[in-house]
């Protein structure tokens, strides 16, 4: 049976601002990958600030059912197909579902393939995936903040005072990132910033100074990092929680 290909774009219902965004994204990956495997569909997925772009290939009936399922999936909104056609052979035969991170080798390969089979579709996808500020010619790199969601984030070096003046949240953030780094979800849990947007802005500032090291995680790695079992509830207040509460009370009086 000939191989068909479809490229579609949709918006995720859960806002990237939500603390559960990464967790829901991981659940979607897990479900989609299992479905694709069961229906001989191979696919690559790109996520950009709540927008999903998926390249899927397989037998036409299976792809049709996939699109029908996605259209009915309440987690995905404003779904629109930007390309559908026939292929001589699969482009991504090894991937039931591969998460593409902008700047990764796999992303470049996928984009090159897409440009080859349909330049207009490639242009559309690039437009959808473009970060809000691109300026490759400046000395400080303009990063893609949305890739933080699926990454392990660390700090190459402590920021110099001449580079950036760290405020209180900034010092806490950098303290966490120095060393092996943490996943984005863990940073959100620490409540260092009032909103995810402010956290992303802070990360972007560090990234623009070439201080950030961002290691994109595979879907398996992302699953593992997000599926840590919750610790059993404690009967007594832990030292950490007691001290946090104490500091919060003192902070209210100070500020």
């Amino acid at each position: 049976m000939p191989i068909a290909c479809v490229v579609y774009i949709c918006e995720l219902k859960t806002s990237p601002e939500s603390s559960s965004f990464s967790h829901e994204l991981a659940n979607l990956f897990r479900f989609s990958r299992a479905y694709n495997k069961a229906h001989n569909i191979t696919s690559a997925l790109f996520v950009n600030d709540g927008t999903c772009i998926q390249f899927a290939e397989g037998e036409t009936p299976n792809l049709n059912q996939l699109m029908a399922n996605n259209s009915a999936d309440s987690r995905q909104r404003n779904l629109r197909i930007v390309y559908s056609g026939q292929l001589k052979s699969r482009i991504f035969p090894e991937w039931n579902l591969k998460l593409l991170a902008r700047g990764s080798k796999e992303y470049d390969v996928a984009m090159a393939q897409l440009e080859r089979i349909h330049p207009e579709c490639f242009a559309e996808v690039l437009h959808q995936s473009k970060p809000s500020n691109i300026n490759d010619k400046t000395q400080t790199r303009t990063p893609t903040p949305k890739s933080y969601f699926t990454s392990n984030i660390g700090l190459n070096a402590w920021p110099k005072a001449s580079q950036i003046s760290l405020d209180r949240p900034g010092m806490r953030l950098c303290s966490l990132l120095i060393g092996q780094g943490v996943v984005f979800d863990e940073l959100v849990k620490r409540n260092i910033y009032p909103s995810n947007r402010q956290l992303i802005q802070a990360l972007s500032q560090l990234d623009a100074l070439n201080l950030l090291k961002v290691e994109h995680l595979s879907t398996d790695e992302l699953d593992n990092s997000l599926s840590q079992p919750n610790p059993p509830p404690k009967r007594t207040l832990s030292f950490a929680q007691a001290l946090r509460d104490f500091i919060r009370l003192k902070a209210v009086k100070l500020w």
Partner: protein
Amino acid sequence: MVAGVQTSADNTYKKLVVAGQIGSGKTQLVNTLSQISPLASEPRSSIDIGKDLATVGIDYGRLMVTENVALGLYGLPGQDRFSFLWDMINQCPWGVLILVKLSKDIDINWLKRLLIVFHSKNQNAPFVMAITHAEKASTEAIDEAQKKIGDVLSDLQIDAPILLIDPRSLSSCLLVLEVFLDLNTDTE
């Protein structure tokens, strides 16, 4: 002499070690955070070190977080001749805070010795470096100090933040505690 963590069914006690050069602000930081009078003895030093007083012995303070939860604050003497006291305190601390007074002549060798002693025995405890007396310093001076400290940390393969704090400020001292909370992986 000093236990690391004492926990009974109802009480929890953890220890924060504060070490640093002469005049870096250890005594001040312990004073700021303690809710009880610190048991610091401050006799006049027999050696002229440019200060009226020098700290001898151990600065001790205690932060009563709740009636059953406390954080002990142990300020270690800065002079090398009291380094034998480091081992007495260096047992399972909750965290190690090293204060470095901003100056052109930061004693890198002393800093390295201190880090080697503490880090070799407490590889699971988080370390935080904090530069003091930087309120009126230029960014260039701060950069230089941070670089020197960063180079020492890098040589010893220690990951630690390098904060700027004012030990007189409760807000600044509370930030230090928040950073230790963030870095501690235990949940007890």
